[in-house]
């Protein structure tokens, strides 16, 4: 599940994940995601860290209170080279982070590590 208000980020990530054989769903923000979660089975969340409305960190916190997603991997998408904010993400329950713009090798490596 890709959660990002940026259509370009969703498009690129979706293409990379689909090429790697993964099924992809998209939401354009935290509210959109929360409306669509009922009964969903989601393997991994890729969540934009900086979003208006519900931030990626707040969304992570909320997902972690839902029993069905208490241990689902959540990766925060952060601007390239930015060190700030990651600790708050970890404390909210995120599993890790991936920098934007996303590169082919990154997505492959992350998915392989999560599968392992």
């Amino acid at each position, binding site marked *: 599940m890709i959660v990002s208000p940026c259509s370009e980020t969703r498009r690129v990530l979706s293409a990379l994940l689909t090429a790697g054989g993964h099924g992809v769903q998209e939401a354009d923000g935290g509210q959109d995601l929360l409306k669509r979660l009922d009964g969903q089975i989601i393997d991994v969340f890729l969540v934009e860290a900086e979003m208006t409305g519900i931030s990626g960190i707040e969304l992570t916190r909320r997902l972690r209170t839902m029993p069905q997603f208490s241990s689902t991997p959540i990766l925060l998408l952060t601007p390239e*080279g930015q*060190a700030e904010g990651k*600790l708050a993400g*970890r404390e909210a329950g995120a599993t890790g982070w991936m920098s934007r713009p996303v590169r082919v090798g990154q997505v492959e490596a*992350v998915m392989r590590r999560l599968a392992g």
Partner: protein
Amino acid sequence: MKQPTIHDFRGAVIRIQTLYSTPPVLSRALRLIRDPGTSVLEITELVRRDAALSADFLHLANSAMFRRGTFCTHLSEAIQRLGMNELLRLIGLSLSKNVFGKDLSNYGITASQYWTESVWAAVAMETLAERHGVDADEAYIAGLLHQLGRVLINEALLEVGWSLFWNGREPVETWELDHVGFTHADAGALLLREWEFPESFIEAIAQQAGAPEPGGQPSLSGLLRFTRQCLVTADPAHLWRRSFPPIPAEERAWAGLEAPDALADFLEATTLSLQTIRRMLNGR
């Protein structure tokens, strides 16, 4: 995909060398202090070259912990009054403010925790070294800098572009090798070599993982391993609660702390020293 090596992260090494000015000063101070021919003037010049260090130095020299008599306003006077050994500790404390000021987010360690663990290790190492006849100055600095490599790994991960956070359950070295292909011990040794620290010191940092060799002679490396065992098995928060998990009997015996009271006293004294230093540095 090819596993990266430490040499793939030259950019991160250079960034850290640019950011941190104090470690090379500490390295030069270690060398000068070992040379019996060193004059106060040489040491004063070394400290004066780093403006932040000079300011810290005078501030710390006039703190309750280090103050001897009247207020010092000149570096050379402060150095003469304190003596060479205290000088190293002051440079080390100034360095700790410089180097441990950033969160290590991938490890889930705040800057404050990082500082706490490092200074705790420095004080513990110094105490153990004095008991075992190992160079206490080197031991103090080794404790202070033993996790320096984590700064490099945190930077290197920004170049990799992703990371799963260390969960604190698997050995930290396993997590480091999986993500960047080298450990913080390797990274620390590399940085210290760049800063021209003595080789015996670098070796101790590089070999910090594992338990002290049973029956081995007291050495900087062995003491660092023992100190690290205390830290690795303890949640950093425990340092403030003075509640420590058991340390294996053979390691306690190796450190000369086999009696339960001896270990408890050692840990308690170390934590109290750390609290004093924290207060001195204005409520960190």
